[in-house]
């Protein structure tokens, strides 16, 4: 990923993170506001319910109190108190309930026997336990109605005054959908009432202002929790139409504290969801615009910032590739401009130092060459000088021996001159190393030729050197100049021979190694230090007493001309191995692999 892409990514991420953070913050805040609104709505509805509950309870109490003053009721209480026939009043509760607009009315004798029941006329003669609540303002009670489902009502119990304990009135008003429908619920809110008629959840027991509730089972969780715990519980559900609802279930308890109904407040989260969707849409829009903006900004920044950096990077790559004279334009005076100036100064300095280094290396090379020439030339010249001085001395001191001395001296002079020619020839050869004339061949042929050439000599020395060749059965096709390669391998063999004056083993192995053909020439000689190994291929460097230091330089030059590589592996006392890698070619195709 380049700098421009990084800048683009950075800007985009910055914008997205910023927009997401803002959207999240706003969303959380909106949710918090809606939750607060939801709580307020629920509290308002509950307060309204409690107010209505109180009002209805007071109304029932007022009606029952009025009934206790009704002449008919007083007469009935008097009659029953004096042993009157209760069956005479079997239908009176129905009449009174209608007149006093009560859903439930039972006339009960002090022993609890029902004289007359408006809501369940057939229940006469049975016991009504609720008269124990006489005197309470009002209370909730579950009313069982024979074969019909039980109902829940607001009840008041009063004894008819004046006639002591002769008649009780147990009256009430139904707590049902009609009760709920009288409450004004704000838009998005609903109020439901669950009658706790069975031990399990009964969907038909849940009613709203409009009667039965569709898919009432969805509310079972919150209702059951309130029924089980006896305290207010909340839940969030998905309604049948996919709308999300916040539910608050409030248990309604009877006089003995048992939960007989549950008030359920359902607040729609539609507005919240819509607001969140709106915020999310805005966030997406802003993020998209931000990313577009980031692209434009990054392009602009790239033009201002990344381009000089890219130029610097390109210049650095050029320097690495060897073009030390490259310069970058300085377009600003900021840090990037200073960096460009520094880079330009650095390349100028590098060029200058390289020229100085070349100069010094050139001088050093000349010095080394002079030293080596002096050394190489000094050795044959000294015998020449002695021979000439012997010949002069013989001419002067014993002319009779001059001829003999002359003959010997001439022969020595000729031999030493030949040595001088040889030295000069070797230097000349290094300077005139020809370009390789490559051809496809089997490297084994080159190696076998070298082995055949040197093996007799090596094994017939005073201290013989055993030659071990490990060549594969299959050809080792390479594209090389056979003569140059023969000369390079021969050089390595001769070096090995010099390294083993006391004899040893010369190993020549070759094999395919990946896409190369690897040839190893190893001896069991004295070995070299790491420093010697490092300088081994430097021209004119030698570790031998008699050597030009050009042999391994020539080998390295030949290998390099064949696009190969040579390394040395050696440690003092453990011999030396030269490893040559040459590019292999496909068998028969002549192509390099």
């Amino acid at each position: 990923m380049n700098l421009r892409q990084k800048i683009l990514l950075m800007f985009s991420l910055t914008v997205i993170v910023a927009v997401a953070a803002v959207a999240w913050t706003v969303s959380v805040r909106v949710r918090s506001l809606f939750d607060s609104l939801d709580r307020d709505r629920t509290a308002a509805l509950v307060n309204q319910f409690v107010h209505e509950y109180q009002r209805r309870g007071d109304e029932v109490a007022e009606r029952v109190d009025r009934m206790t003053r009704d002449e008919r009721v007083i007469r009935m209480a008097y009659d029953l108190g004096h042993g009157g026939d209760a069956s005479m009043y079997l239908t009176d509760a129905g009449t009174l309930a209608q007149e006093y607009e009560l859903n439930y009315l039972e006339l009960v004798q002090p022993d609890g026997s029902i004289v007359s029941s408006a809501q369940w006329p057939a229940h006469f003669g049975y016991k009504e336990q609720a008269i124990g609540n006489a005197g309470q303002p009002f209370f909730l009670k579950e009313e069982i109605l024979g074969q019909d489902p039980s109902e829940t009502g607001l009840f008041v119990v009063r004894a008819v005054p004046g006639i002591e304990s002769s008649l009780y009135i147990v009256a009430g008003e139904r707590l049902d959908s009609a009760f709920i429908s009288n409450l004004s619920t704000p838009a998005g809110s609903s109020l439901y009432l669950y009658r706790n008629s069975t031990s399990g959840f009964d969907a038909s027991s849940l009613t709203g202002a409009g009667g039965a509730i569709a898919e009432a089972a969805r509310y079972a969780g919150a209702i059951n929790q309130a029924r089980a715990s006896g305290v207010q519980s909340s839940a969030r559900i998905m309604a049948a139409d996919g709308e999300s609802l916040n539910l608050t279930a409030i248990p309604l308890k009877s006089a003995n504290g048992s939960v007989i109904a549950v008030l359920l407040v359902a607040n729609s989260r539609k507005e919240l969801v819509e607001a969140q969707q709106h915020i999310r849409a805005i966030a997406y829009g802003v993020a998209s615009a931000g990313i577009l903006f980031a692209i434009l900004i990054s392009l602009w920044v790239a033009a201002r910032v990344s381009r000089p950096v890219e130029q610097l990077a390109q210049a650095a790559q050029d320097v690495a590739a060897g073009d030390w004279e490259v310069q970058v334009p300085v377009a600003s005076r900021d840090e990037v401009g200073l960096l460009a100036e520094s880079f330009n100064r650095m390349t100028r300095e590098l060029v200058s130092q390289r020229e100085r280094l070349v100069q010094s290396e050139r001088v050093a090379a000349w010095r080394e060459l002079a030293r080596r020439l002096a050394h190489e030339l000094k050795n044959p010249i000294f015998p020449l000088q002695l021979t000439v001085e012997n010949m002069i001395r013989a001419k002067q001191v014993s002319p009779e021996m001059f001829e003999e001395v002359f003959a010997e001296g001439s022969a020595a002079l000729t031999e030493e001159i030949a040595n001088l020619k040889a030295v000069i020839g070797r230097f000349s050869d290094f300077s005139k190393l020809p370009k390789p004339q490559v051809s496809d061949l089997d490297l084994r042929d080159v190696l076998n030729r070298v082995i055949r050439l040197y093996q007799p000599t090596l094994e017939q020395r005073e201290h013989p050197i055993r030659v071990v060749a490990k060549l594969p059965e299959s050809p080792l096709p390479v594209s090389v100049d056979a003569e140059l390669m023969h000369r390079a391998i021969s050089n390595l063999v001769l070096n090995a021979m010099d390294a083993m004056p006391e004899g040893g083993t010369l190993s020549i192995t070759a094999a395919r190694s990946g896409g190369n053909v690897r040839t190893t020439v190893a001896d069991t000689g004295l070995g070299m230090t790491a420093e010697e190994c490092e300088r081994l291929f430097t021209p004119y460097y030698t570790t031998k007493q008699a050597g030009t230091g050009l042999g391994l330089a020539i080998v390295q030059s030949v290998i390099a001309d064949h696009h190969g590589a040579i390394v040395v592996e050696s440690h003092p006392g453990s011999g030396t191995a030269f490893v040559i890698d040459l590019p292999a070619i496909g068998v028969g195709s002549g192509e390099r692999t």
Partner: protein
Amino acid sequence: MAHTRPHYGGTLHVETQADPWQAADSIGRRLVFDSLTRVDEPGGVQPALAVRWKEQNGDHRWQFWLRPGVHFHDGSPLTADSVQQSLERSCKQCPWTSVRALGDSVVITTAAPDPVLPQELARSDYAIAAQDATGDAVGTGPFRFVSNANYMLTLAAVDDTWQGRPFVDTIEITGRRVVRTQWLDLAAGHADLVDVPVEGVRLAQQEHLNILQSGNCDLLALTVARSGVLAEDAQREAIALAVDRAALYNAIFQKQGEMTASLLPDALTGYGFLFPVGRDLVRAQGLHEAGGGAPLTLALDDANPTMQLTAERVALNLREAGFRVQVAVRAPNAEASAAAELALRRIHLESADARAALEQMLAAFGQPLTDESGDPATLYRMEASFIETHQVVPLLYLPRSYGVGARVHGLRLSPDGVPLLADVSLEDAK
């Protein structure tokens, strides 16, 4: 003396809860149609359209001689052929196998000896009717049919009826009238005769209504299907033991009539007390425990509030015994056997003869009477053996009561509780 002498003329206004024309024993039909015989107040069989009868062949063959000079309301004469056709039309669960015209008499043959056939022929089910030119039924009674619209039945007096002309000229019977409204109309003088349900007798007395009450003539009974869960005798017995007749008698029916566990009233048979009316809830619960808990339906044909209350109370009794019972009002035209395991029925007893009455009751519950002798001991054994099957649980025998206006004179009730309006005269009639 003047006010005691009956006056002719005037219109008698009658109001009733029931349809005045629908049922065979309705008040309207009893005035328009006559039977071959009639039952007098002591319960004896008296001649009506038949002036005499004679049994032959060991009560297998009965010959009834017709009253001469009787005409239907369309003017056609009463003949043996018309009587034969009428009886054949009305025969559904009739006791005879054939009816044959023989001169001025009809011969009725029964499969088994039937010593009480004359009493049975007094029932309104076997009233004699002919069809006029338009296909409507016409009778020979003291009143003829004029109109019936919106439960308002109008009958006109027939001048030349064999029984003699009735005192009133017209009778207007308004049906489907709420009891409380009837009483208000009676108090206001808009009605001369109104219904007083037995459960309202005491209240009517408190309101000082002039009440005329019959003997016990309506049996209130619970029928129990011999199928499903109730196929077991123990379950049916549990139902019979669970019913609390005392609560029905004391509270709902305001101590009117009598509690009964027999099909016939004690006054008719004298052995009614042998059938125990008490409740044994513990035994009922014990018997039911061994049975299944399938839900039962208690059906009633009459949507009357008192009948509904009675059914609810019976259901409550049965629930105490462990039965799961649901009360349902049957549609008016539903089959009597429609799907209900239990049914609350009110059966009107027309016969004043014990054997005829038992035959009628058993027929009402789909049982034949196999006794030939008709002696009380045999009747008791037959009834007891049927009651012990617990297919029917008799609850109460109830009278019929009427509120009578001040201007009505001479009103009597038939032994089966139907007002004899042909004998009524109005005080202010001229």
